[in-house]
């Protein structure tokens, strides 16, 4: 066979945007439900959000098969954790586990871009943001995925979080109320959908607070 074939790639990018915002006593985690490949839309209703523990929720974009494998690996590890410790994993613990799990595949990475949101042991909202190979940071808000370049500057502008360089360190959580944060999330997704072809169809919003977890959906542009 002398014909030149396009080289096979084990990766794809299925697009999508993920956002998380931490408040004093709540956390909002959101992602759109579109799954694409190239200019194709594969499905308009695929959840990128996975509840890993009672108080830890992960939103992931990137390569769906890797994302699914990552979610399954984490849930299996969390099951083992529950058997061994008789409790749910805390969000900061899950954050470290996620980092280790990603780094374990450093040389054949999970093509997954994650934000992990939840409540820490004090009940305060927390957001952890990652790259594909596991480096992570605790922040007050974050966005990942195909629309992140549109969303992050918007959030920076609206949330005006204290510089992480300030000493003594200032709390990273946002000053917004829960409803304001949810409205902000809806706005950033409506905006990202305008310009990012990989974001759209519907946004799924998970809200964690002292009274538990609830879900909201908002329709987005379908073109």
């Amino acid at each position, binding site marked *: 066979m002398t014909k030149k074939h396009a080289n096979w790639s084990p990766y794809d990018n299925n697009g999508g945007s993920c956002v998380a915002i931490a408040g004093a006593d709540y956390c909002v985690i959101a992602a759109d439900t579109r799954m694409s490949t190239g200019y194709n839309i594969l499905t308009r209703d695929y959840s990128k959000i996975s509840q890993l523990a009672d108080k830890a929720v992960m939103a992931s974009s990137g390569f769906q098969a890797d994302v699914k494998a990552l979610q*399954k690996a984490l849930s*299996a590890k969390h*099951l*083992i954790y529950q*058997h061994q410790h008789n409790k749910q994993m805390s969000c900061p613990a899950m954050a470290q586990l996620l980092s280790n799990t990603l780094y374990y595949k450093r040389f054949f990475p999970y093509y997954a871009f994650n934000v992990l949101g939840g409540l820490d042991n004090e009940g305060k909202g927390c957001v952890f943001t990652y790259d594909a190979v596991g480096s992570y940071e605790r922040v007050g808000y974050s966005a990942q995925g195909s629309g992140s370049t549109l969303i992050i500057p918007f959030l920076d502008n609206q949330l005006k979080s204290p510089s992480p360089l300030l000493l003594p360190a200032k709390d990273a959580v946002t000053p917004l109320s829960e409803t304001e944060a949810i409205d902000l999330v809806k706005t950033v997704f409506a905006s990202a959908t305008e310009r990012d072809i990989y974001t759209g169809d519907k946004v799924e919003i998970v809200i964690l607070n002292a009274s538990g977890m609830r879900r909201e959906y908002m329709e987005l542009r379908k073109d």
Partner: protein
Amino acid sequence: MFRNQYDTDVTTWSPAGRLFQVEYAMEAVKQGSAAIGLRSKTHVVLACVNKSNSELSSHQKKIFKVDDHIGVAIAGLTADGRVLSRYMRSECINYSYTYESPLPVGRLVVQLADKAQVCTQRSWKRPYGVGLLVAGLDESGAHLYYNCPSGNYFEYQAFAIGSRSQAAKTYLERRFQNFNDSSREDLIKDALVATRESLQGDKLRSSVCTVAVVGVGEPFHILDQETVQRLIDTFEIVKEEEGPLAEPEQATEQAAPTDQGGAENQGGSPMDI
């Protein structure tokens, strides 16, 4: 201690067709404190008696959650029980990783029995010294199995294992015909009464027993102590409902270790249960 020339390793048959090491392992099950299980069409309840080794120590955990739909109660060597429940947990996790659905209870029980069987056929191994009551729910309904060190397993409507379990068994045998249509509460009540039977006169308190439930719409969980005490109080099981039952168990417990290799002291095949 020396009984005869056929009991020094697991793989040697006695001329009477018995494997003594395996039977000794089954004796270990009888020495452990009692564990009880009973099931209806929709629920399975496990209960066990907690005995501590000394006044100064706490008791060992005898009921383990395997998955949302499966749990076990053990009698015998607790250490072996822990190892086996860890194996069962990992099988459940692996199955649901591959199929995203729960492992059917009966299949797990067969895998467990096969694992126990291997130990009865290898010269460098010893049989597990633990009996397991496996409670679970799957698409074919609620199930209760008993797994034996010999690698045998049986499905039951209700069963009790461990020391002084004969009294509990007698109670269950009297009542098992109603269990299939029992409510969840009635099952728990019967579990508690059966547990009391095996306490032999000791007062039933939440501190000496553990109860766990699995059923339709109810993932396997161990009831907390307050709940159990409340149930004991509401059912008024504390006071003796009827006279303490005769204890035929005592006789067999004594008889077995003096057995000289013949089949004279037991009627049926020794491997049944």
